[in-house]
């Protein structure tokens, strides 16, 4: 049993080893071949070609929280749609109606939040 178990993991071990080796090889090769002429501009962290502003550990605006939260909630609701899509053909209209009411209920919540100006960037 345990041998089987270890055997199953040996693929992963080999894969990890090859991956590691690849990184080491590529980095050494690039170090050996690439020209080395450092300047102040080049040592800046890359930020879409602009000069970076502020600390790298800057805090995000708390207003993003609402959007992040809404995203997580709606993202998770999709979880139910995959099993639904699998059986949809067999179940027909009743499956459609159930998913329809599910989405209507969620949409109602979204509309409420929208109307109460939760989504507005103030």
């Amino acid at each position, binding site marked *: *049993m345990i041998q*089987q*178990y270890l055997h*199953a993991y040996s693929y992963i071990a080999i894969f990890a080893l090859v991956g590691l080796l690849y990184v080491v090889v590529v980095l050494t090769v690039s170090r050996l071949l690439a020209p080395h002429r450092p300047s102040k501009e080049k040592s800046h962290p890359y930020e879409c070609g602009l000069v970076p502003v502020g600390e790298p550990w800057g805090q995000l605006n*708390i207003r993003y*929280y609402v959007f992040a*939260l809404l995203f*997580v*909630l709606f*993202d*998770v*609701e999709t*979880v*139910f749609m995959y*099993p639904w899509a699998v059986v949809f053909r067999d179940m027909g209209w009743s499956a459609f109606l159930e998913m329809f009411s599910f989405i209507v209920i969620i949409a109602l919540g979204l509309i409420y939040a929208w109307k109460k100006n939760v989504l507005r960037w103030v």
Partner: protein
Amino acid sequence: MIPLTYYLIFSAMLFCIGVYGVLARRNSIMILVSIELMLNAVNINLVAFSAYLRGDDPIGQMFSLFAIAVGAGEIGVGLAIILNLYRLRNTINIDQIDFLKW
């Protein structure tokens, strides 16, 4: 084939790490994260059992989908309450949330 026990031990370890986090951490957000860890232990258990039971019992998988969705909703409410707490008290350290005595 990996035996079921390995999954169960893994999920038990995850659960224990979560319990430790809940007990040892003072930051509310970290406590939420620890609870989420425990929820993941539950999901691993459910999926593992469902795969190893006679004839691939689908109930466990279904259950874990519901647990994930409900857990997300719970965390959403939790974050909202903690955010409001921060707004009112300027702290999310559970040792300092003591207006109401224990």
